[in-house]
């Protein structure tokens, strides 16, 4: 068992040493694989960051509840309290008509015009923020309907259309991400397979001799599988570094953009899980590509 393990370690290191001897070719191959893997990785970053960013904008799915006029401040507080106690409501903030008017006077610059009015034209308003688990369209609709049925409520404003649109866009992106990952993964396998094929051609003599002295197909194939393993690992690591560079370059402008929208959103890098998946799929694709190519091409090489 230990001898077997030792031989695998030796083969792995031997394969690494051989790749290191052909620095340029190896670097180019790994770079191509890295770029191919970086594309889906960057798309993944785009989608996850967009989800986080829109998560910050949960405020946008708030319901604005306008109360009937006239409603007493006391009644408005009771209504707000009733709404707040619902399971699907995280927060219900009451803005009394007087406060709203003060705010409006300060912010709008229509102070004089408002002074000309005899009474406050604004209703009491309750801003309802749903619990995060209930922010899908169906739940929001039923929440709005329930609130609308309350006696002192005049109107409920709910704009789910753009939430739906955004979710649809993200879903489309996610599908695109899967598709891109599948196509580029196939590309990685083809790249590795082709590299291994050339490698096998270059080492034809060695393969023949090894078979002559009794090397089995599996024995002859092993170093090529390790080559595929290293290509995949190196490519995945390169892709990971590319995502880091992309994040570093984009972090500042994106932060500034978010700031303009009043958000403190910051671009996030690949998480531990996503990084592990990237590395694992790189290794798996490299190994699989070399396995298919080596199995296919080594069979054809027989000593003559």
């Amino acid at each position, binding site marked *: 068992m230990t001898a077997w393990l030792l031989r695998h370690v030796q083969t792995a290191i031997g394969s690494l040493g051989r790749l290191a001897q052909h620095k340029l070719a190896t670097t180019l191959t790994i770079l191509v694989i890295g770029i191919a893997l970086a594309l889906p990785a960057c798309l993944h970053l785009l989608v996850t960051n967009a989800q986080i960013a829109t998560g910050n904008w949960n405020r946008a799915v708030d319901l604005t509840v306008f109360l009937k006029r006239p409603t007493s401040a006391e009644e408005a507080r009771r209504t707000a309290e009733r709404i707040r106690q619902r399971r699907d409501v995280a927060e219900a903030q009451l803005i009394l008509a007087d406060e709203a008017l003060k705010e409006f006077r300060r912010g709008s610059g229509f102070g004089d015009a408002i002074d000309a009015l005899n009474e406050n034209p604004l209703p009491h308003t309750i801003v309802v923020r749903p619990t995060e688990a209930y922010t899908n369209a169906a739940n929001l609709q039923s929440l709005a309907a329930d609130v609308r049925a309350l006696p002192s409520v005049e109107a409920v404003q709910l704009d789910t259309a753009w939430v739906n649109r955004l979710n649809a866009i993200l879903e489309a992106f996610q599908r695109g991400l899967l598709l891109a990952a599948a196509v580029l993964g196939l590309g990685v396998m083809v790249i590795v397979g082709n590299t291994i094929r050339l490698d096998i051609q270059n080492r034809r*003599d060695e393969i023949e001799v090894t078979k*002559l*002295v009794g090397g089995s*197909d599996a024995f002859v194939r092993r170093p090529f599988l390790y080559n595929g393993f290293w290509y995949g690992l190196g490519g995945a690591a390169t892709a990971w570094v590319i995502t880091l560079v992309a994040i570093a370059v984009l972090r500042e402008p994106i932060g500034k953009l978010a700031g303009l929208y009043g958000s403190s959103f910051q671009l996030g890098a690949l998480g531990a899980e996503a990084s592990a998946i990237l590395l694992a799929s790189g290794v798996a694709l490299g190994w699989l590509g070399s396995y298919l190519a080596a199995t296919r091409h080594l069979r054809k090489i*027989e000593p003559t």
Partner: protein
Amino acid sequence: MIRFDHVFKRYPNGREALSDLSLEIAAGEIVFVTGHSGAGKSSLLKLITLIERPSRGQLIVNGQNVAGIGRGKVPAYRRQIGMVFQDHKLLSDRTIFDNVALPLIIAGVGTKEIGKRVRAALDQVGLLGREQSAPLELSTGEQQRVGIARAVVSKPPILIADEPTGNLDPELSLEVMKIFRRFNEVGVTVLVASHDIYLLEHFPVRRVRLEAGRVVETSDAGAGEKLLDPRKLIAADQGAKS
């Protein structure tokens, strides 16, 4: 050890390399196979090493009928045959040590044991101390001796050499042949294909002469010709019945 029974070998291009060849080589024997190029020497060796398969007839090596050895079992079969080639077939990007160690690595021998046996094999061919050299740093004769060390390092019962002295001058050829003789003396069955007249004259061992794919002459070491070898007649008889 090796028995050909009415073996034919026809290549896809229609050339018949071996035609009704019957031959028996006993365990522990050393035999020269001679003949002009094209007489079938190479084909004979290729059949034994399973590089080619007989078109007809039966070939039994070390008690195994080669017809029953499937593709997956060829490697294990070849591990019982040491092979020496005219062009050495050394791997030029590896050290002498790694070249000789190859059959042991394939057989799954432990690292310590590999070191011991590689040095022993190199010692037997007079190249101890050259383990870390590259094959191309060695002379042709030395390279051939490395090839022999690789062929015997796993102690196979059969040693096969195809024109092992083809590129060597007479003196080196004799030296190589002496090495083969030493292995034969410890019980290895040795089969050497050669048309090196000089070599043949200096080694009184059994000779099998091929011509157009048949055995036309077989002579025992030193003794007179024994074309009607009773063993072979029995074998031929059995072959005809089966």
